[in-house]
């Protein structure tokens, strides 16, 4: 191997691809190495059953930074994000709660349960707008280091302090509540309709190993609200072709800018020479050299797997070992022979092209969590479902459908047995839960794909199957993500960088860590 690169990016997930594209745009010679045969990592679409495209892991998008779409001209490379604007919650008695893009329809729907809640909903949205606006600022900057005395760092901290102190008093208090409360408690200050609270609180537990009554989950609500405030680029959407459509568009942009991408190229080790990253060794023994290396994997892999411990200070080793990556979610993807018939939800595109949330009460969610706390998967899990083929007809053959079910909770470590033994039982629990609302479901299933946290780890390398490469808890965010002192995409090894969602500002299909990392790499001028 004689070719020498300016940068090697480990992992062809969407963040790795974003970093590659930005570096290539700056004229650098970039190589992306992806272990799998497909790109995208957690944002991948695969034809698991002939004719049916599964958005295998992630399924919806709201946080993808609009500047990335513009900078990389992703629309030219095939990106289309379709609106996904409603959520319906089927209820056990045959009723449902619907929230959607039409203000008054949503109002009337909530008012069927509580007139007060219908009114509170607007007020709540406005308050969350303020909160997201206050916090969004953080997501857009590179976190200053609070322990550093460099003028730039102190200036950054002062800017941040000033920003928060400028908030009106009420907003400041609400922000503190959001940072500390449980999502259910926080929402109960606003609403009285239990299934509404449950469904809204569900976005506070996604990807965490916490229940709706666990403190700290309110912040995750906000994290999920963040996509709502960018003016026209609002709320949740479904990427045409599934979330793999996003990764493919970014990959195409990166390639058109000159980046090279190799699949089925698993990196075994980062080569360090004289304390500086010099390249990587692939699993097959090939060595590839580069002036810099960036890893888009989680800290466990970035630091502990790919590097020799001797290159890392003890504190960092300790922090990374403590970094929480508890998996809590699984995925069940189905190929269906026809459109499922819902017992308690109005049939038809208007509702079925949105999200369908199986979250009938806060206690239901909390009980689902109880199972997982003691090492079992939820017998009656929380399920966030979409029917991608109702949004994008190319996802399944005409008249057939694909169903994507994000499922919580499923712990990484089971109290009894292994996931290889329990996988199908977990799938059955999901299908049985769904069948209560979709009586004809079982008859329609042509193929089912069940993914447990263990499978997520095995397939795309997310340690313990944590969907965000580490929990979104306050102790693991901002200048603490992934570890104090290493929140700026750098590592103790010169020329070795972090560019995945374990870095600030965290998980989800945002591209933000990948983009900010590229800027920091370029700033160092090593390549």
């Amino acid at each position, binding site marked *: 191997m004689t070719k020498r690169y300016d940068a090697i990016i480990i992992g062809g997930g969407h963040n790795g691809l974003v970093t590659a594209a930005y570096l290539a745009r700056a004229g650098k010679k970039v190589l992306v190495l992806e272990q799998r045969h497909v790109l995208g990592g957690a944002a991948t679409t695969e034809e698991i059953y002939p004719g049916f495209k599964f958005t295998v892991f992630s399924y919806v998008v709201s946080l993808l930074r609009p500047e990335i779409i513009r900078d990389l001209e992703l629309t030219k490379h095939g990106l289309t994000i379709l609106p996904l604007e409603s959520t319906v919650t089927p209820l056990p008695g045959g009723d449902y709660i619907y929230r959607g893009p039409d203000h008054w329809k949503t*109002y009337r729907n909530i008012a069927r349960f509580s007139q*007060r809640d219908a009114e*509170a909903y*607007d007020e709540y949205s*406005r308050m969350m707008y303020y909160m997201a606006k206050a916090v969004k600022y953080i997501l857009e900057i590179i976190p200053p280091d609070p322990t550093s005395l460099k003028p730039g760092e102190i200036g950054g901290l002062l800017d941040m302090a000033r920003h928060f102190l400028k908030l009106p008093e009420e907003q400041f208090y609400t922000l503190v509540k959001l940072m500390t409360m449980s999502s259910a408690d926080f929402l109960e200050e606003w609403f009285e309709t239990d299934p509404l609270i449950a469904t809204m609180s569900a976005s506070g537990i996604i990807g965490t190993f916490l229940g709706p009554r666990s403190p700290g989950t309110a912040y995750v609500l906000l994290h999920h609200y963040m996509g709502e405030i960018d003016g026209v680029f609002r709320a949740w959407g479904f990427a045409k072709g599934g979330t793999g459509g996003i990764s493919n568009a970014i990959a195409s942009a990166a390639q058109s800018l000159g980046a090279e991408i190799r699949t089925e190229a698993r990196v075994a080790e980062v080569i360090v020479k004289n304390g500086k990253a010099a390249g990587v060794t692939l699993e097959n023994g090939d060595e590839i050299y580069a002036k810099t290396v960036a890893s888009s994997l989680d800290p466990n892999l970035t630091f502990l797997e790919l590097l020799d411990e001797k290159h890392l200070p003890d504190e960092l080793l300790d922090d990374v070992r403590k970094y929480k990556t508890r998996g809590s979610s699984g995925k069940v993807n189905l190929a269906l022979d026809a459109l499922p018939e819902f017992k308690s939800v109005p049939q038809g595109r208007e509702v079925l092209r949105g999200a369908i949330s199986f979250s009938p009460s806060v206690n239901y969610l909390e009980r689902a969590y109880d199972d997982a706390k003691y090492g079992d998967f939820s017998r009656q899990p929380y399920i966030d479902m979409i029917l991608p083929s109702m949004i994008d007809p190319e996802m399944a053959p005409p008249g057939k459908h694909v169903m994507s079910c994000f499922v919580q909770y499923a712990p990484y470590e089971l109290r009894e047995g292994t996931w290889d033994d329990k996988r199908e039982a977990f799938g059955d629990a999901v299908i049985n839960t769904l069948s209560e609302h979709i009586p004809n479901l079982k008859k329609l299933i042509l193929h089912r794909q069940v993914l447990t946290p263990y499978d997520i780890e095995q397939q795309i390398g997310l340690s313990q199957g944590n969907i965000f490469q580490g929990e979104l808890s306050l102790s693991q965010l901002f200048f603490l993500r992934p570890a104090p002192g290493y929140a700026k995409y750098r590592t103790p090894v010169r020329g070795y960088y972090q560019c995945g969602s374990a870095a600030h500002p965290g998980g989800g299909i945002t591209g933000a860590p990948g983009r900010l990392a590229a800027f920091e790499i370029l700033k160092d001028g090593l390549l």
Partner: protein
Amino acid sequence: MPIPTPFHSRQLPLVTSQEWREWSGYLAPITYGPSYEYEYYAIRNAAALIDVSPLFKYEISGSDATRLANRIFTRNIEELNIGQIGYTPWCDDHGKVIDDGTVWRLEENRYRVTAADPNLRWFQDVGYAMDVEVHDVSTQYAALALQGPQARNILMQLDQGAPLKSLPYYQLTYGETRRFPFTITRTGYTGDLGYELWVEAQHAECLWDQLMGIGQDYGLTPAGLAALDMARVEAGLLLIEVDYISANTALIDSQLSSPYELGLSWTVDLDGGEFIGKQALITEKRKGSDWTFVGLEFEWLELESIFKAVDLPPQVAGRANRDPIPIYKWGEQIGQVTSRVFSPIQKKYIGLGTVETGTAKLGEMVDVEVTVEYSRQRIRAKLVKPQFFSPKRKRAVLDD
């Protein structure tokens, strides 16, 4: 997706224009027939029937009802007699207007309130720990505005017993037909003689049919929102989210307005109850308000001349226009026109707007922006009291 009002079945065949719009989640005709002007002149010349069911309606009752009403509304509710109605805004703690509407004193401790936006949660929260009940009766009642010089004559045919001749402006009374009772308020949004009729929703169609039947002999015409909007600008009546932004929806401080800034000082009684926002309004009254609500009369000859320059006759909005335009003085922007319309009855181009207090006085000339063939120009306009039309018949009471 708007839903029909209780009068929809009657409106549907009449809205030959196919012009509908959403109003608070309901489907409302903008016009019925080919010309909004016929409908406008029905209001000023004969009588118009306007479906105002989408208004929000609340009922406040219980031994603390008056206490609560006095806590919410800026007017002194103690001063309302039973059967009397007060137009009033209500404010947040900072004295900024949340909404405006009418408060009817039905009994010593029972009130009906109309509002433009949902307010149940606010009213209930303010009444926390009081002996009071607040109910949303919005869908329970349908409402028709019967407005125009012939309104009284028509109504007297509908219920010959109701004391309509002596019913003063902003008072209510009760009427009945053979089939159902209804409430009559001498109120409206047109600045003309007129009434609003409130009936249990199930009798809505029947009420419509009876009125339209009687109305035939009096020139009664169903009128849509286009005509209503023209009439309310002439009358100088505010429209929420057009002439001001509710404190509930404003996103930045500069979008907020106090009652003083909306020309509603006459509705604020600082000697009355301890209403919410009172302290802030006391301070504002002492220090002065930032903004002043004004009327504007565009200089017609100047308008003519800037259009003449491109060889066109003056082109102005026939229907009321809600796109704001800037107001200038000495080249600096001092405010904005928020509603404007060519007043057909006065042949004047008029507007409602807001200027920074102290920059211009009533009677003075300011400059306003007018677009002529894509080019933005300025002409002069006179600041006037924001009420362009107020006929005697609006308030007049007849003998016997």
